[in-house]
């Protein structure tokens, strides 16, 4: 039984026919790390937002289910849904520079969920925050908890956000391109850190990224998304040895090689894009019948 299973989730811009998600189905087992890859605009972040309940107002879900441990989130009243998601899920956001509240100290930003939502005592929550900050290798957690975000570097802030995501021992973490906004040198450390934290805590992880290299290092399985459709759902070894969908094959071929940094970039061929688009259109037609 998967911890998260999404069935036939469709979403669109309110009052517009254009679909953002087209009957997306996705499973994440307990403790599994699943990559969610696709180009910009494919809808990968929208899936994360749909799970966490932070979709923009202009987007509406038209059909489907999001089952979290068997409970359909979309069928819950808003307050209940918030409480459930807040205690079972967490987000590692994309940009650490904007994801911390500039006017509050770090400590309360880690402990607030524990104290306000999960009713921990302040002392327990602070102790937990100190432990987690040490776990994400932040020197002098005590001082950092008293700091304001602008006093810390981007890498430090991303570590803090990772610590904060693990604070309540969630069952599922959604990492929304957690390394995209970081320096290349820091990216690798953060990636390692997320993988290590995930392994230690046994948390299921939905890793949203456009970087197949990252997926190959961190994930066990992946879903390839194009124009709101899941084109391929494979384990990592299967995908990298024998991608099923032509678009996946082209995507894989387009990944820059670290072994050949000066080699020219291969774009996804137009014919593949056209064929994939046709497939999306066919899916739309069959959905309307």
């Amino acid at each position: 039984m998967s911890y998260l299973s999404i069935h036939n989730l469709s979403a669109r811009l309110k009052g517009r026919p254009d679909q953002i998600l087209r009957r997306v189905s996705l499973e994440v087992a307990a403790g599994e790390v699943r990559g969610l890859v696709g180009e910009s605009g494919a809808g990968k972040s929208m899936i994360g937002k749909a799970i966490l309940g932070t979709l923009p107002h202009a987007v509406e879900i038209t059909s489907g289910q999001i089952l979290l441990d068997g409970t359909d989130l979309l069928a819950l009243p808003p307050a209940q849904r918030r409480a459930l998601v807040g205690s079972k899920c967490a987000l590692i956001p994309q940009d650490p520079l904007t994801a911390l509240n500039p006017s509050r100290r770090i400590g309360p930003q880690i402990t607030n969920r524990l104290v306000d939502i999960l009713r921990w005592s302040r002392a327990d929550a602070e102790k937990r925050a100190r432990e987690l900050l040490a776990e994400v290798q932040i020197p002098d957690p005590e001082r950092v908890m008293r700091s304001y975000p602008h006093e810390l570097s981007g890498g430090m802030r991303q570590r803090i956000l990772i610590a904060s995501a693990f604070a309540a021992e969630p069952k599922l973490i959604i990492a929304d391109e957690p390394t995209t906004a970081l320096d290349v040198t820091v990216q690798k450390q953060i990636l390692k850190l997320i993988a290590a934290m995930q392994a230690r805590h046994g948390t299921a992880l939905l890793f949203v990224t456009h970087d197949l290299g990252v997926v190959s290092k961190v994930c066990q399985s992946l879903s390839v998304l194009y124009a709101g459709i899941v084109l391929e759902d494979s384990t990592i070894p299967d995908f990298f040895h024998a991608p099923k969908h032509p678009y996946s094959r082209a995507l894989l071929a387009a990944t820059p090689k670290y072994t050949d940094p000066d080699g020219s970039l291969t774009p996804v061929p137009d014919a593949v894009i056209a064929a994939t688009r046709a497939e999306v259109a066919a899916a739309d037609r069959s959905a309307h019948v």
Partner: protein
Amino acid sequence: MQFFQSVLLRLSTTFVTLLGVAVIVFFVIRVVPGNPIAMMLPPGATESDVTRLTALYGLDKSIPEQFLIWISGVIQGDFGTSITTKQPVLQLVLNRLPATLELSVMALIIAIILGGLMALTGTRLRGTKTEAAIDVTNGMALSVPDFLWGLILILTFGVLLPIFHISGRVTPSLQLPFTTNFYLTEAVLRLRFDLWLDIAAHMFMPALALAIPLAAIIGQLLKQSLKETMHLDYVTLARTKGYSETHVILHEALPNAILPTLTLVGVQFTFLIGGTVIIERLFSYEGLGNMAIDAVINRDLPLIQGIVILFAVIFTGFNLLVDLTYAALNPRLRHA
């Protein structure tokens, strides 16, 4: 340390500003037509009477000379004597100042409450008809000037539904045990809530008239910056933690969104104090503004100077206060 330096710097620039104001007001009111001596003397006064009185008030000297005499007095705390009432200007002005301050602060509080409520409600219910209604109300509140709101209020709550008093500061028949002129404040401190109620009922309408346009400005700006803040990542992150929309607005967005509004309130509050001149006249409220109009009509030069200087002190002092509050609320400035 750096903080104190910047405060000192601000204080010294404030001093220069005040000196500039003193120079301008002194020269302007002597250049514009109107002679205070002519206003004081009864018809049929002789030429020698005029000369004698002019010399008595020092108005026969050259304007720069008069300025030097006046400004050296001001530095020692002597603002001269009112021509019409023959009382020291400083005493007259300080007697009236509490009334105007209480009125302005009351207006500011009303404006912040009304504007804040409009902004928060509009943000909470964004995209709904309520938000549209708030925007329309805001536009109306903004496009009607304060004195017209004063008239509308007098008609509605003074004449049609006589709930509030339309003139004065307090019912004249009441015995006031106060030692200062901060009636409203002192009534609270002396636990005389009966008097407080009477004073507040007098003050409410002029304060509301002053507050409505300011409330609209506050509401509009705060809602705008709240809306922008609500899209930021840390607000989204707070939502994923399980916080309600209301909590997210109040605890995550508001503390950051309020900063630009605060600067604006500082600037607008000084306009509000300027607005008291007309509003106090309209409601026969015994404050500085009302006194200023009388002083201008009577060409009471020392009194006009005193009032303008005092207004300038309030303006600059309040702006300084806003800057300090801003620094206190924004950790990035505090540590810089």
